């Protein structure tokens, strides 16, 4: 899909550059390796696994907990043609191609624009949809009639999307980049932009569904083709998909699907913005919060003892073990959590030949990461205990382990409660990064709702509130514990 990242070379943040690095490794490892289920060409009775990022209506979004949209129905039709069952994975767009390469699914149907860069890495079906870039402006701002009239003004786009290719040709238009296009539209409505540039079909959907006061300015600027992406080493699957697409066109089923989503009746039906269904939104966010809390608690339960063990490991007399523990801490603190998650979920299974469920990979990554921070917290806590304590204990004849267990640690634990609480809160918020491997935790749930309802202003404050509700008890608990321990001292 053209709003999304075009190629690694255009990735701006270090995290994304690293993501591409991992992706590169995966391509090297993944190509020509592992079972290629499609190579037999016969999918009867088997399950076709498809990945998508359901934050992009009308192609794919989540409604009442179900995947809906043009691409979703298309995937179902293709599976039907092949006689296969279909299993969807909803994951963030950053993660969808690494997962494809790692063999987590067979196809990506996610409004993916066919670009030369992507063709170097991925296999594509024949194009199934023609889209293009569109300019959007405020209704009241009649001066904006198309891309030319944005010269000397400011336009918003989604970061790293093909809109930037269009705007490269207009150096006198100032470009402001947003993490998602609905945020650019919001800023346009707030009067901070003269226009926004993005994918036509999706912009039209947003205009119809929640962003009143905005209008399309001029026609499509470009022509782009969406294709179904697959691993490049699977020509049999590609032929099967192309044949299925052709049969769908021949039978008229494809035309009927197009009509339902993009025909005149559909455009009219879309034109009535809906009220935000607060009950459903709250329920979806609560589910996301449940997952966020579950992940955080599991990661803390296993990260605390692991971190403590690593902190103690750094003090052992056997130097190689101490070095190993130090290297562990530095390694995990020195790399972004996002990269660790990607590595564990996508690269590790390739290297070790095991398959990790997303939940397991997410908990593992969060555990290993927080253990490194917990280890440092414990190390500082142990160092903060007066040296006289250890001497007094040793002078009583206690061994090193006894000194640590009965004298140093009980005091260290008391010292580290505040920083451990902070770590817990940080972990709770950082857990949003596991959305990249398809975990629908709170932030991801918010993303899905904001795009589906075209109502970022309604959804994000609620998401923030939910995070606050989750962190407040944590701080309370810690200060209560602190007080209790203090009374003893």
């Amino acid at each position, binding site marked *: 899909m053209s709003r999304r990242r075009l190629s690694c070379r255009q990735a701006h943040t270090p995290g994304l550059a690293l993501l591409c690095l991992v992706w590169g490794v995966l391509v090297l490892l993944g190509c020509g390796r592992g079972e290629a289920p499609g190579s037999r060409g016969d999918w009867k009775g088997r399950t076709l696994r498809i990945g998508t990022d359901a934050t992009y209506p009308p192609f794919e979004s989540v409604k009442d907990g179900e995947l809906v949209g043009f691409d979703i129905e298309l995937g179902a039709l293709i599976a039907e043609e092949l006689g296969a069952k279909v299993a969807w994975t909803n994951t963030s767009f950053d993660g969808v191609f690494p997962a494809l390469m790692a063999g987590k699914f067979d196809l990506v149907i996610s409004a993916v624009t066919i670009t030369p860069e992507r063709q170097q890495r991925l296999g594509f079906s024949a194009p199934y949809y023609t889209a293009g870039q569109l300019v959007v402006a405020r209704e009241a701002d009649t001066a904006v009639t198309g891309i030319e009239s944005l010269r000397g003004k400011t336009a918003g786009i989604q970061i790293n999307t093909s809109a930037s290719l269009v705007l490269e040709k207009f150096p006198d238009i100032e470009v402001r980049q947003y993490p998602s296009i609905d945020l650019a539209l919001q800023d346009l409505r707030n009067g901070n932009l003269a226009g926004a540039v993005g994918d036509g079909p999706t912009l039209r959907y947003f205009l119809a569904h929640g962003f009143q006061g905005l209008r399309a300015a001029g026609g499509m600027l470009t022509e782009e083709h969406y294709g179904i992406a697959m691993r490049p080493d699977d020509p049999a699957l590609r032929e099967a998909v192309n044949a299925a697409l052709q049969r769908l066109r021949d039978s008229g089923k494809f035309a009927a699907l197009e009509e339902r989503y993009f025909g005149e009746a559909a455009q009219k039906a879309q034109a009535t913005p809906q009220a935000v269904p607060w009950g459903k939104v709250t329920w979806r966010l609560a589910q996301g919060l449940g997952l966020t809390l579950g992940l955080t608690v599991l990661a803390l339960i296993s990260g605390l003892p692991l971190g403590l063990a690593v902190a103690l490991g750094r003090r052992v007399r056997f130097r190689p073990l101490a070095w190993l523990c130090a290297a562990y801490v530095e390694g995990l603190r020195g790399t972004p959590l996002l990269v660790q998650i990607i590595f564990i979920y996508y690269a590790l299974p390739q290297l070790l030949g095991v398959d990790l469920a997303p939940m397991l990979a997410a908990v593992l990554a969060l555990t290993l990461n927080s253990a490194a921070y917990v280890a440092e917290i414990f190390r500082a806590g142990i160092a903060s205990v007066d040296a006289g304590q250890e*001497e007094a204990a040793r002078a*009583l004849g*206690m061994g090193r382990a006894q000194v640590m267990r009965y004298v140093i640690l009980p005091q260290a634990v008391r010292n580290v409660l505040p920083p451990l609480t902070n770590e817990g809160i940080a972990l709770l918020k950082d857990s949003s990064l596991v959305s990249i491997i398809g975990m629908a935790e709170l932030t991801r749930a918010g993303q899905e709702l904001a795009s589906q309802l075209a109502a970022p202003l309604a959804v994000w404050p609620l998401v923030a509130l939910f995070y606050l509700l989750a962190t407040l008890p944590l701080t309370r608990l810690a200060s209560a514990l602190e007080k209790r321990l203090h009374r003893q001292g």
Partner: protein
Amino acid sequence: MALVEVRNLHKRFGALEVLKGVDLTVQPGEVVVFVGPSGCGKSTLLRCLCGLEVPSEGQVVVGGTQVSDEPKALQALHRRVGMVFQRFHLFPHLSALENVTLAPRKVLGLSDAEAETLGRRMLAMVQLDSRADAYPGQLSGGQQQRVAIARALAMKPELMLFDEPTSALDPELVGEVLEVMRELAREGMTMCVVTHEMGFAADVAHRVVFMDAGKVVEEGPPQQVLREPQHPRTREFLARLLNR
């Protein structure tokens, strides 16, 4: 046979030589008081006697065991020598009774009941049986130091070391700690005490050792060293101490 035998003890911290050849013998039941200017190495000598520091050169033999850096031997030595620190170093997360019983339980393997009986007896000895459940933070300095003494005594040491046990105390609390130490001496405990309390030295010590710059300068019975010091450094030091 002597309980403590120190021969030609040198202790260096990097380039700094703190003890420069100390010889010392302590007989069982003897009370030896160490005096000397700040930084002359008194604490370091005591720490060598209980195995918290290992000699750089020379020998320290306590009750027939030589101090070396072998962990098991060191731990055995710790068990037989009690140490009382200037700043108490009680375990703040444990009650007075738990402070006293921790090592007997974990090191000697006493049962909880046995350890408690022992602990209460030790606390009674320092007149603190009524404060058994108090935490160190709830006790005065003098009370804390008495608990620290009880804690060391609970391990039934053959030798007790005191490193300026009253220096961190308010003047009105010094007496109660010295009283406990006097009582210990009366019972025949072998003690090495670093202190500036000259009254205590005169009354209780069998011998006073004057140290300066890492060496023993002069030693003898208290009357002799305190009243008629032979060495000019000793005289100078005592004059300054009395004029304070």
